[in-house]
């Protein structure tokens, strides 16, 4: 059953390695042995001098079948280690049988069984460790993928550096501004109750057309940097800008909790005092 070609582990033309094939073989062997132990525990017990331990043998049979099913699955590793442990248990049980028995013939059979078990255990151990070794990720030299953005124009997505000089952005205007500063939850959409129906439709359309809100708000400092935006303020760091925005937003909504438009202009005034610039078409003052 073992052909020389199977023994070359790194043969690139085969997807199953020797260990994979042996695991499969041992899986079927395990199931066969399990069925024998389940079906005829009496005869086996008699042969190796374990009379009175039929129930135990049946349980071992169940274990063998479970390990066999595992060894036949795609991930045979854990089941093979389970087989190694189970075999040690079997060996212990056989040794007890050998010790307790006086009958010369039965002792001989138990001896054969132990010899066979030792052989199978060694094979199991080889397959289990081989599988574990083959499945492990080699910790060799790792490759560098940090330049693989996939964006050839490089205007966005290049990590760590800008292709173009970064310009500070402006505070967003129009519908984007309201959404950006006032809406807490896109589901409840609290600001929408203040907007007329037709304007709502226009905004929905604008929302669909609008691209790259990353230009407005540095959602995450690292992210914004990678997308090559200096943010909204020429000198402050992104974390500082985020704090300013949060503070002014809270200031606006606390001053005018029921009037989102008024709250927005208060927030914008607050931000302007801190040196931020409005974009075009910022919402009119009420």
């Amino acid at each position, binding site marked *: 059953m073992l052909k020389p070609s199977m023994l070359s582990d*790194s*043969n*690139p*033309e*085969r*997807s199953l*390695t020797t260990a994979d094939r042996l695991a499969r073989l041992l899986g079927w062997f395990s199931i066969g042995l399990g069925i024998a132990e389940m079906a005829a525990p009496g005869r086996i017990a008699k042969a190796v001098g374990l009379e009175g331990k039929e129930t135990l043998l049946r349980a071992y049979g169940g274990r063998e079948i*479970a390990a066999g*099913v*595992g060894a036949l*699955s795609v*991930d045979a590793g*854990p*089941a093979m280690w389970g087989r190694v442990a189970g075999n040690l248990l079997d060996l212990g049980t056989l040794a007890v049988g050998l010790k307790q028995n006086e009958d010369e013939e039965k002792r001989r059979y138990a001896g054969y069984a132990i010899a066979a078990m030792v052989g199978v255990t060694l094979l199991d151990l080889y397959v289990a460790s081989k599988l574990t070794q*083959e*499945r*492990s*990720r*080699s910790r*060799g030299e*790792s*490759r*560098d*993928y*940090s*330049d*693989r*953005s*996939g*964006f*050839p*124009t490089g205007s*966005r*997505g*290049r*990590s760590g550096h800008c292709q173009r000089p970064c310009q500070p952005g402006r505070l967003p205007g129009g519908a984007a501004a309201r959404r950006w500063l006032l809406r807490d*939850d*896109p*589901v409840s959409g609290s600001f929408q109750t203040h907007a007329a129906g037709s304007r709502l439709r226009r905004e929905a359309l604008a929302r669909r057309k*609008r*691209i*790259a*809100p*990353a230009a407005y*708000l540095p*959602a*995450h400092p*690292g*992210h914004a940097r*990678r*997308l090559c935006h200096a943010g909204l303020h020429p000198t402050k760091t992104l974390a500082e800008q985020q704090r300013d925005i949060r503070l002014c937003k809270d200031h606006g909504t606390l001053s005018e909790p029921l009037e989102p438009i008024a709250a927005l202009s208060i927030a914008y005034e607050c931000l302007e005092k801190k040196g931020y610039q409005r974009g075009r078409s910022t919402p009119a003052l009420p």
Partner: protein
Amino acid sequence: LQVWGAGPVGQFAIRSAILLGAKQVVVIDRLPERLAMAEAAGAITINFEDESVVERLNELTDGKGPEKCIDAVGMEAHATSTPDAFYDRAKQMVMLETDRPHVLREMMYVCRPAGILSIPGVYGGVLDKFNFGMAMNKGLTFRMGQTHVNRWTPDLLRLIEEGKIDPSFVITHSVPLSEGPGMYRTFENKQDDCIKVILKP
């Protein structure tokens, strides 16, 4: 927007999202080389073996969860330390379950109410312990399929022609067809930082 899995599908999900104007793209994986590639496109990365996905997501979304979730993992999730991962492994071992839907469960849990779950990750059969009541009562939308290739091919080819994206970034290995089986092994075991293989006949 949140992407689970930074394999080739996940990598393109990230870039598509950025091209479509996503404000914040977060990606979850456990392999450093894949996270590095995702980061190159501008995504925020979470290594689920080092940090808690739910905690980090709460932090990034002000506790509201992502609006859109993409499962680019599918049935062979490699969640390592969660109870449901052990459960799925055990059931799969004795052939009582075909898939390991850890990612789907997590998406339903973290996604914002009325959010969208998009599932290009492949599932093969029977899923277990699937909290559909949670998805129903959060009003989630499920979209799935093997990425509707025919529908989008012309649009995507145009993006390449216009120079908006260069899909070759994802290719890490290029081998003759005869070495295919061995390369499958390398890919399956995530060796040699393998992400995408091109087989040359």
